[in-house]
């Protein structure tokens, strides 16, 4: 199992949309790599015939009656938004210059 270097951690942080300073990378890279080394012991423990478990208590096709229930008003839904306008969440531009 491969280990993670500083550049890998920087790339993963970018994928996860978390800005990292050099200090952050210095502090976190070694710790994350130690955790990866510890969890890598699992590879090959269970053979190909062992099924995976994604959910502890299997349940399928859970539905409920299709009835109208009270829900949040637009004002309630927007009350905690950092910015709102015309009953919508307001955000900075979606695409960068290069897009």
């Amino acid at each position, binding site marked *: 199992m491969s280990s993670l270097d500083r550049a890998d951690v920087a790339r993963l942080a970018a994928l996860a949309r978390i800005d990292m300073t050099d200090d952050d990378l210095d502090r976190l890279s070694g*710790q994350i790599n130690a955790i990866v080394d510890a969890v890598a012991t699992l590879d090959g423990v269970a053979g190909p015939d062992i099924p995976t478990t994604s959910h502890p208590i299997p349940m399928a096709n859970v539905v409920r009656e299709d009835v109208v229930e009270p829900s949040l008003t637009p004002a309630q839904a927007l009350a905690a938004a950092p910015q709102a306008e015309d009953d919508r969440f307001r955000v900075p531009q979606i695409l960068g210059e290069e897009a």
Partner: protein
Amino acid sequence: MTDWTRATAAQMADALAAGEVTSVELTQAHLDRIAAVDGDVHAFLHINAEEALATAAAVDADRAAGAELPALAGVPIGIKDVVVTEGMPTTAGSRILEGWIPPYDATVTRKVREARMPILGKTNMDEFAMGSSTEHSAYGPTHNPWDLERIPGGSGGGSAAALAAFEAPLTIGSDTGGSIRQPASVTGTVGVKPTYGGVSRFGAIALASSLDQLGPCGRTVLDTALLHEVIGGHDPHDATSLPEPVPGAVAAAREGASGDLSGVTVGVIHELGGEGYQDGVKQRFEESLDLMREAGAKVVEVHCPSFQYALAAYYLILPAEASSNLAKFDGVRFGLRVERETVERTMAATRAQGFGDEVKRRIILGTYALSAGYYDAYYGSAQKVRTLIQRDFAAAFAQADVLVSPTVPTTPFKLGERIDDPLAMYLNDVATIPANLAGIPGMSLPSGLAPEDNLPTGFQILAPAHEDARLYRVGAALEALLTAKWGGPLSSLAPELEVAR
């Protein structure tokens, strides 16, 4: 004058029904206690005094008018800050949600309100429930009332410390890998993680959706049973909610209180003991087993060989699910926003400022475990190990009615001791994690004080899925046996906290 904060929730409910005390008096007594000691303990992130007293006054008025009231009406409660509460700040211990007021109640909050229980406030926790010490709370750690320099456990250290410091008789916790049971163990209190799906997760801010479970915390087994019946049951708003009715927790706790364990087979999990477990923890565990034998229980040893891989599987599955669940904190709809030129850069700047180190570590780890080329080796392997652990439990429960172990390998460590060593921190949950991976219910109750440091040790009881009632039957019996031996509950032995003036 009676100090009502020392009573159990069951005693408070009886006294309210008998007219010996009012809910306003009870609620005010706890608010006074919080004012006196929470400066040192820091179990609460938000105090909800005004609303709690209004709820209490309404219960008192209804009771005076002869109304029929729920069993715990008027008994105050604290709610872990991972559970959303309409009109009350909810942060999950994170800066990214600082000041957020949810526009709705979690199902558990609604049930607590319908039970007419005054909500004292929101309890402290590790950020998004990631941690075993509350040191990852963005608002500062909670301190263990047994020794203020030590951790109260985590993530629900606030909910457990509030009980141990007599700031609340009952609290709500959440348990993803032990966050109810481990804090209960290190604070000398009782905590129950129900069967997965036994308590609705609607409105509980998700950490790892296939592992998370809300549950009751108290100072006695009966008190947790009473709260379990308030918060449990089917909820159409949670697709993983079990359709069956709440297990008869209170009846089982009352049955167990006789202390009789004849006909019960107790399986000691070989892999959850021995090396790495503190001497005093092992000693108190063995003494509890002796008491159970004397009370008629048959004690056998069971083997769960796959448990050696449980911690590793957990630290792949949890970060994978958490990295997905925490994607919603993007600075768009609620919480913190650090404004940048584009929305994508805004998200990255917001998450950098709003999340603490442990949250960042786990999101990055989860992103890695789910990435192309590594998914099968990491996440896939972990899910297979989960199957092996379920099979180990099934085989063990074929030999025993309940399984037992120490809840935590050690007594509480000092604040700061493991903060820079995530792996050492993770090891604290080695005995509690298997239950979450398998979805089965578990309880921790006090087994005494370790002779070497005079700090609390915990006894864990596990039952098959849907058999939560067994925890209460066996837990109440052991509690009765231990209380008789000690001459009173363990909580009464806690050192007196200095009271602020």
